[in-house]
C-alpha cells in the first residue's frame, strides 16, 4: 500500500499555479495473482492528441528496466527527471498500489487519458495495460487491465 500526497513535479505539464484549481485524486491499482516477481508499473497522462504530458507515479526503482515500459519510454523519451519524487517500489502479484495526488481540474473532462504500462521479470511487457479517459463521470468506476491489472480506479 502506497499513499502519498504530492503536487506533481514542476517539470510536468500537469501542475497548476495554485492548489485552489486542483483536487486530491486517489489512484488504486490491484494486480492479478500471477506467478512471478513484482511488477513495474508506470502511471502517466496523454493529451487529446495522444501525446505524452507527464508522469503521475513510477512503481519500480531500477531505471535499467524502464525500457520494458515502452509506452512511457516512447512518450517521455525515458526522461528520469520526470520521476523526481514520484518513484516507489515495484508491486507484488496480488498486491494493491494506492497513490494520492493533487491533479489539476483542467485534466478532467478535456480528452486527457491516463495510461498504465506494466512489466515483470520473465513475463510479457504490457504497454498501455490500462487506458482510461479522465472524467468526472468515470471516477470511482473500476476497470481491468489487459493482463497484470485486476482492477484500476481513480477516486476524487
Amino acid at each position, binding site marked *: 500500500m502506497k499513499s502519498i500526497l504530492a503536487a506533481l513535479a514542476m517539470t510536468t505539464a500537469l501542475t497548476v499555479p495554485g492548489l485552489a484549481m486542483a483536487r486530491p485524486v486517489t489512484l488504486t491499482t490491484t*494486480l492479478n495473482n*500471477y*506467478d512471478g516477481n513484482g511488477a513495474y508499473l508506470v502511471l502517466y497522462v496523454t493529451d487529446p492528441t495522444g501525446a505524452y504530458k507527464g508522469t503521475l507515479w513510477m512503481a519500480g526503482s531500477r531505471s535499467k528496466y524502464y525500457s520494458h515500459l*515502452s509506452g512511457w*519510454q516512447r512518450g517521455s523519451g525515458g526522461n528520469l527527471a520526470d520521476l523526481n519524487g514520484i518513484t516507489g517500489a515495484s508491486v507484488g502479484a496480488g498486491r494493491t498500489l494506492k497513490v494520492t495526488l493533487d491533479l489539476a481540474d483542467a485534466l478532467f473532462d478535456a480528452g486527457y487519458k491516463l495510461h498504465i504500462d506494466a512489466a515483470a521479470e520473465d513475463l510479457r511487457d504490457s504497454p498501455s495495460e490500462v487506458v482510461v479517459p479522465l472524467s468526472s463521470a468515470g471516477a470511482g468506476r473500476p476497470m481491468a487491465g489487459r*493482463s*497484470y491489472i485486476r482492477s484500476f480506479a481513480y477516486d476524487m
Partner: protein
Amino acid sequence: MLRWIHKVLALFVILPLMALVISGSMLSVMPAWDRAGAIAPDRISVAVLAGRVANVHPGIAELKRLPSGKVVAFFSGSDGPAASVVNPSSGAPVSDYVRSRFERWITNLHRSFLLGDSGRMVAGAVALAMLVLTLSGLQMTARRMGGWRHVLGRARGDGVQRIHTDLGRLAALGLLLSTLTASYLSLTTFGLIPDGASQAPAFPSVTSGGPALPIEQIAALRAIDLSQLRELTFPNPANPSDLFHLITAAGEGYIEPLKGQILAWQDHSIARQIYETIYMLHTGQGLWWLGLLLGVSALGVPVLGLTGLGMWWSRRRAHAPITDNTSAGQADTVILVGSEGGSTWGFARTLHAALTSNGHRVHTAAMDGLLRSYPSARRMFLLTATYGDGAAPGTAGTFLKRLDEIERPPSFPVAVLGFGDRQFPQFCKFSRDVAAALASKGWASLMPLETIDRQSAQEFARWGEALSEVLDERLMLSHVPDRPRTHTLTLTERLDYGAEVQAPTSVLRFALPGRGVFAHLTGRGWPRFAAGDLIAVLPPDCDLPRYYSLASSTGDGFIEICVRKHAGGLCSGFLHGLQPGDSIEAFVKANPAFRPARGRKPVILIGAGTGIGPLAGFIRANAARRPMHLYFGGRDPASDFLYGCEIAGWLDDKRLSSLATVFSRVKDGGYVQDRLRKDADRLRALIADGAQIMVCGGRDMAAGVMEAIADVLAPAGLTPLALKVQGRFVEDVY
C-alpha cells in the same frame, strides 16, 4: 597478515556465503535442464516462426528466444500475463513457461537474500569477500608450496589442511569466475558500471494507413534467422500507429507492419555486449556446461568453510596464552617462537614450564617480537618451524630484518631449535637460516642447532637432556602433543624373525577394535586407515607415544606393524614381550604423504629391515594389480627375510611384479643401494614411464638410497629433489 585477512573475512561472511553458494549451485543446473528440454528448430526465419505462432496464438504480444534455444510466446492469460514454450516447427504450444515459485525464491535469495536493494548490496559485498578469500587463499597456497610455479604441486600437511588446499585449488578457477562476474553484475545493478541496457532508437511516427502485411511476408523479419532472435514485440492492435519492436543479437529497431520495412535501427553498444557476455558467464544461460562447472565449484565452498573452521579452531587451541610469562625486561631466559600452525607454541610452552619450575624467570613471545635488548637475560632460545619451501613461518616473518637492525650482539648466548618435517625438501631450512644469520652477526651460541622431525616428543626430550648438561641443572622436557583418545588393541598373532642375526624383529597383528554404531556416529571409533599411516603406541606408564608405520589397511581386517627390538628400547621391548591375547593402547595418525600416488603408473618400493612393513601393506592392497617392484634389504635370507612367504604368494597372484633382495651377512652380500645402482638402466626406464619411488627404513639406509637414486637419475638429467617436488619420491624415515 594475509592469513588474518583470510580468517577474519571468512568468519565474517561464512553464513551469508553459504546461502549464496548453495542457492547458486542449485541455479547452476537450470541452464542444462532448460537446454535438455529445448526443441532444436530447422533453420527458419523470424518471419516464418512469427507467422506460425500468430496462427496458433492470435493474441500474441511478444516472442522471445531464450539462451537455451527455447522459443517462448507471451500473451495475456485469463488471470494475468502468461507465456508458453512453443514448438518452432509448428508454432504450437509445448508447455507453460513458468518459473516455479521455488526457483524464483532461490533466484531472489541468491540475488538479494529476499531483502530487496539492501540485500543486493550485501550479496555484492559477500561476492567481493569471496573473491578476496579465493585470491588470498591462492596466495597462501603459493607461498606454502614455494612460489606460484609450484602452486599446482602436491599439497602436504595433515588431512584437514590437505582437503582445504586441494579443494581450494580445484574450485579456485570457478570461484574466481563466479565472484568476478558477480561483482560486475552487482556494480551494474547499482548503476556504477554502465550495462548498455536497451537503447532503442527514438520511436518513429508513422502516418501511412492500409491493410497490414501477413507476418510471413515482412521482409525485415524474413531476413533474420531464428538463431539471431532475442525478442520480437508485436504491435498493439488497439494502437494503429504501433510498430514491431525487434531485438536481435546485433541490435534493435522498429519495423513498420504495413510495408514491412525497418524504420529505425540501433546496433547494440559495446557495454551491452560486455554485459551480456558476463551475464552468460555468471549464469551459464547459453553455456550450460560452464553453469554446471561453476555450480560444482560453488559446492566446494561449504566444505572449504568447514575445513577452514577446523584449522582455525585447532590453531586457536594451540595459541592458548602462556601462563607465568615474565616481562621481557625482567626475564633471565627468553624464548622466541616462530610458528605457522601453532604446534611449535606447544613445545615452547613445555620448555617455558620446565624452566619456570626450575626457578627461572622466563619470557616467551613470538619471534616477530624480538626486542633490541633484554637487560636481565642470561640466555635465549629460538624455537622455529619452517613454512613451505624454506620460508619464515607466520610469527617470524620480520625476524631476520629485526635481527639485522640490532648492531651489537648481546652478552647472552642463544640456542636455535628447528621444527620440521623430513618429507619436505627444505627440512628446517628457516631455522638453519636463522642460525646462520645469528652466527654472522656474532651472536654467541649456547648449543648447536638441533632439529625436531614431525613434532617428535622423543627428539625434543633428547634435546632437553643436552640442555640440562649445558645449564647444569635437571630439566625434564616431556612434551605431550595433543593426542586423540586411544583404543585398546588385542594381539592376535606374531611372527618372529632375525634373532639369529642379532636383529630380533616381529610382525605383530592386532584385531580391529569393534566399531559400535554409537562410536562410529560420534567419531570415536577406530578410524579408517591405510598402509603407510602411523600407529601411535603408548607403552605402560608412559605419556610419550611411539610411532610405527602400519603394514595393513582397513580392508585387510587387522592392524599390523613390524617392530625391531632395540636394546633398552622401552616401547619395542614392551611390544616384543606381548603374547597373543595381550593388549596395548594406541591411536592412528594419518600420514597421507606416504601413500602410492593414484593411477596405474609403476611403483618402486625400497625398504630395509622393518621398513618393509608399510611396503608390504601397499602390495597386499594392490588389488588392481598395478606394476609394483620391491627392493628389500636384510641380513640373512634364512633369518630375517620379513614377509618371505607372503611375498612369494603376491608374486604368484601378480600383486607384486618383481622382487629384488639383497642380504648383507651372506657371501658376496651387500646393501639395497648396491642393488639399485646395479639396476640403474631398469630403474631409469621405470621412472621415464612415470614411476613413483617409495622408500622406508632407517635414516642411514634412506640417505644411502637417496645417493644411489641420485646416481641412477643423473644420466637422465633428473634429481631426487625434482622427483620429490612432484611427489614421485617419497620417504618414511625413522
